[in-house]
């Protein structure tokens, strides 16, 4: 009987105490790392500057020949030569009588 039990007993490669140590270390390690990381995030958030400074605009610079612009521009910007826009005076509106033709109550017609 004892021989049969011994015969069917599984072979253990890792001892139970070792399993326990590995499991505990794994749990502690996971919790510990999460704690460390979260603390670090909070610290970063606190130390981050909160200024709303305008972000720099990236523009492509193109070289322009200022002399050619001056040569092509023939119009004067003097106020004296600007066209004066005038508006014709509105006609004087006399109070026209409001004609309210009454609605006929009926119509005379060939006997219907």
């Amino acid at each position: 009987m004892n021989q049969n039990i011994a015969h069917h007993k599984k072979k253990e490669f890792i001892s139970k105490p070792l399993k326990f140590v590995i499991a505990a270390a794994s749990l502690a390690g996971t919790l510990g790392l999460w704690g460390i990381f979260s603390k670090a995030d909070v610290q970063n958030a606190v130390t981050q500057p909160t200024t709303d400074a305008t972000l720099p605009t990236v523009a492509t610079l193109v070289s322009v020949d200022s002399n050619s612009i001056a040569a092509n521009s023939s119009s004067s910007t003097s106020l004296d030569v600007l066209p004066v826009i005038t508006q014709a005076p509105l006609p004087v509106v006399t109070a026209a009588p409001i004609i309210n033709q009454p609605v006929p109550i009926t119509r005379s017609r060939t006997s219907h």
Partner: protein
Amino acid sequence: MHTYTFRAMGSQILIAMDTDEKTIADAGLEAANWFEEWEQCFSRFRLTSELSEVNQHSGQFCQVSSDFWDVLELAQNVEKMTGGLVTPRILNALEEAGYTTSFENMAENIDTYLSHTYAGSGSGEIEIDENTHVIRVPYGVRLDFGGIVKGWAAQQTMIRLRDAAPVLIDAGGDIAISGTMSNGVPWAVGVADPFHPDQSLGLMMLADCGIATSGRDYRRWMKANQWQHHIIDPRTEKPAETDVMTATVIAKDVIQAEAWAKSAVIFGSVSAKESLARIEPLAYLLVLEDGSKIETPEFSQYRWNEKWQTIQNSLLV
């Protein structure tokens, strides 16, 4: 304003009472019963009407109702007034032309309808006894009060209702008007264009008068490939040959207006101008078959214009 409409005498009837009080205006509801009574008395399309009874007993003495007596007397006066142009003794000629049933029921194959006539349909005087209201229509003569009775009915209704409120009665285009409206402004009445029935030839401002239009733009039919209409010329006992399509007349009452309008159609435009001018200055508008119009200054003075606007504004202030 309260208005009531109903059909009677083959026409659309309008009762307009210028009052805001419905209890007063409800008196107008009674008008439908009056028209039914009168239709039972004067319709030539009802075999049991008093008119049919009289026509069936031509040549015999008949006692007639007071309404029949009044209309007969009126018709005889109109006949004298118009020199015989508007007469009630035209029923044979009307039927000969094919107008044998109410216009609404008139069949397309009018040729198959009654076409017999009596010799001398319009001859002879009607004997009357004023005391007993007994009459005798000459043998072979049959009466049709036609347009006269419609005008008379409108006038009677107006007289019965005018004490309750200002009133306008439109009996198929024959219009009786009691006076001005409650605000003192005349009633606005249009005149239909015979060539464009949905359009108006003008707006008339009317009070204490009658207006009527007679014409051959409606109630006409085809017989023997010829257009026939209901306005009989008693001189020929045939539908009047005339260049007048419609005649609209404004007179002191609707009965006179109707009589003169019918006379103008029968006369034709040339004779109408001469004949009607001799009788009295008459307010009329003739529309001829070519579309042209003849209008007297008396008619023009009723037309709506800015003058009426001023009057209306002054009354509203």
